[in-house]
């Protein structure tokens, strides 16, 4: 009996132990660890990133987020290596490059069937242009940006020039730049466009480099609107009121525009971005924001963008990754990032209205810019523009930038771009589509 009791006790203890172990292991299995790669820098400080994760983990105790915070300049190499290797890609990542998009999970159904989040909360154009790819939603947007003209109010006051307004024209731009130019102070009036596409869009609005059905270059790339746009560019270069490409190469800040020249008061106007607003604000410079100038009557276009975070298509935890993604990109995460990183601008209009400096004139100018039609809206449907035809235009652009052609040669120079442009289009359309 004693032995029996002892055996029973032993069996009972064993069962109890097994039960406890199974509970323990079940608990361990329930905790999922997600890997998440993102970048930090002036625009998104590391503590803000960790605070978003802490807030998420507090709400989702069964999910842990193992974040790798990298330098901006390091991220592309790492992500490209991991994707090329086909393994070691994190559950969640920042899908900046278009080349990485095929690696992102299609989250269309999750987004459309999740009661916690809706695509309607996002800025429509930024959402459609930046996270919808091949009719699939492959990421969610976070941190939007756009190009606009910032003007230094102190420089304007110094020269007695009235501030620009949202309805200004390309000719206004040149005249103001000339008025602001001051050789004694080594000051230029304004910078010059830094890519061929901008001159076209900025000046002519609806002008396209080729027909909307992607078949014809003749009459578009060298049409009257394009000639007018490039003649305007020639006039701007000829005015001497703008830094040369060599000046910008030496004095500009690579990839981010000449914000340091602008802050120093050596550039009265500069085409910059939201991050520049924060730099300028922190430097104590009195500034304003207006859209890029356009020909009267034309639609207002803007070069805008959104960063995007997505889930790796081979993630072993897509459900948990989705939970984090919608938290990070949704109002809870975006609010923390905006409040703790002054250079973060959420793609959610209702949140943008809560920005710390929302009542300032420059911020209101920025919001106006965001509502303009994006160049990406056209470019998205015309992938051959950037990939192929732009190379043809580049030659005309460089000749004007370097001052190597006369004003009356602009038409002939653009005419010479028709043949290579058409060849590029004919080669590209079967490959990339219209």
């Amino acid at each position, binding site marked *: 009996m004693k032995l029996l009791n002892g055996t029973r006790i032993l069996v009972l203890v064993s069962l109890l132990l097994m039960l406890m172990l199974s509970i323990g292991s079940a608990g361990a299995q329930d905790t999922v660890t997600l890997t998440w790669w993102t*970048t*930090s*820098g*002036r*625009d*998104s400080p*590391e503590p803000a990133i960790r605070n978003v994760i802490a807030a998420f983990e507090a709400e989702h105790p069964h999910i842990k987020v193992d974040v*790798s*915070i*990298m*330098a*901006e*300049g*390091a991220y592309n*190499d*790492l992500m490209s*290596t*991991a994707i*090329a*290797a086909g*393994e*070691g890609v994190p559950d969640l990542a920042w899908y900046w490059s278009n080349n990485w998009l095929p690696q992102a999970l299609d989250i269309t159904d999750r987004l459309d069937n999740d009661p916690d989040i809706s695509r309607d909360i996002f800025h429509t154009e930024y959402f459609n242009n930046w996270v919808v790819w091949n009719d699939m939603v492959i990421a969610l947007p976070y*941190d939007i*940006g756009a190009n606009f003209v910032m003007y230094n109010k102190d420089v304007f006051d110094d020269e007695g020039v009235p501030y620009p307004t949202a309805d200004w024209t390309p000719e206004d731009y040149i005249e103001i730049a000339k008025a602001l130019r001051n050789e004694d*102070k*080594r*000051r230029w009036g304004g910078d010059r466009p830094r890519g061929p596409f901008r001159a076209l869009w900025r000046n002519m609005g609806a002008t396209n480099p080729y027909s909307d059905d992607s078949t014809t270059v003749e009459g578009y790339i060298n049409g009257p609107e394009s000639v007018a746009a490039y003649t305007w560019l020639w006039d701007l270069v000829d005015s001497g009121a703008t830094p040369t490409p060599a000046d910008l190469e030496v*004095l500009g*800040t690579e990839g*981010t525009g000449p*914000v*340091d*020249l602008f*802050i*120093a*008061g*050596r550039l009265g106007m500069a085409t910059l*971005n*939201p*991050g*520049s607003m*924060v*730099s300028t604000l*922190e*430097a*104590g*410079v009195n500034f304003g924001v207006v859209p890029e100038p356009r020909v009267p009557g034309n639609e207002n276009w803007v070069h805008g963008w959104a960063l995007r975070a997505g889930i790796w298509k081979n993630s072993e935890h897509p459900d948990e990754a989705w939970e984090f993604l919608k938290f990070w990109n949704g109002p809870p995460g975006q609010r923390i990032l905006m409040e703790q990183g002054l*250079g973060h601008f959420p793609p959610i209009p209702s949140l943008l209205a809560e920005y710390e400096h929302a009542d300032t004139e420059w911020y209101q100018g920025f919001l106006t810019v965001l509502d303009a039609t994006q160049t990406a809206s056209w470019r998205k449907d015309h992938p051959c523009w950037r990939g192929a035809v732009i190379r043809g235009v580049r030659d005309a652009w460089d000749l004007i930038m370097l001052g190597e052609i006369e004003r009356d040669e602009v038409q002939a120079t653009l005419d010479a771009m028709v043949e290579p442009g058409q060849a590029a289009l004919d080669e590209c359309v079967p490959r990339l589509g219209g």
Partner: protein
Amino acid sequence: MRIDPARLSASEQLRRSTRQRRARKLLGHAIIYAVMIALACVFMLPIFWMASTSLKLPRELMAWPPEWIPSNPQWGNYAEAFGKYPLARYMLNSAILVIANIVGALLSVPVIAYGFARFDFPFKNVLFILMLSMMMVPGHIKLIPLYVLYLRLGLIDTYWPLILPSYFGSPFFIFLMTQFMRTIPRELDDAARIDGAGPWGILYRIIIPLCRPALTVVVVFTFLWTWNDFLEPIIFLRDYDSFPISVGLAFFQGRYSIEWHLFMGATLVSIIPILVVYFFAQRHLIGGLAAIGIKG
């Protein structure tokens, strides 16, 4: 006592001539020093500009006329830079990597080079050429296979991928060391052998002490390459606190702007160890490189 005027003249002439030679020599030295000081100033300009920028406000960075010595130096920029990112930690990480790599290089390179320089074995030349051919392969090509290898070994986000290769010898250093060892007379080996030394004894008692200039080159170059390495740490490391200083400095470049004043301050501090090492090692380094160049 009368002095012969002719002898006086000769002695005076000699003195004059000596004085003139001295003056010419002095002038020559003065010109050489002046040129060298001018060149040194030119080479120091970027570092001086870096120091100057590190003490400015953002609106002063591109101001005209440029201020070489800021009128209101912002010493707080250094505290801000080191407070914003864990740069002290990153410098410590770099130091750990440097020491581990130097130890690895010193343990592996002399032994491998000794084999090539002093022993005959089958396929020695083929192996030497194969080893040399590794120098021709750009590091970027190896990156993806190495990434997969370390990932499968579970070594990603550890320092092992950044340290292990040095324990297997760098082709450049092995080549350098082999050439240097070949210039050491074999009679010294024979003498040591007669005194009872074995192969290891000859290596550690005879060869290595004579290889000090080449070893200095190995140490200094390993230091510089490891301290400045950017690509491999960003591929193999993940933890925010584990990065070396080369990666840490990149945090000052944001998405839309660069905090030049903080970046320059942090960079200036980060190059101090390099300057110190070069300062103390330059005599051996130049001597070592010259010796390898002449004898190799």
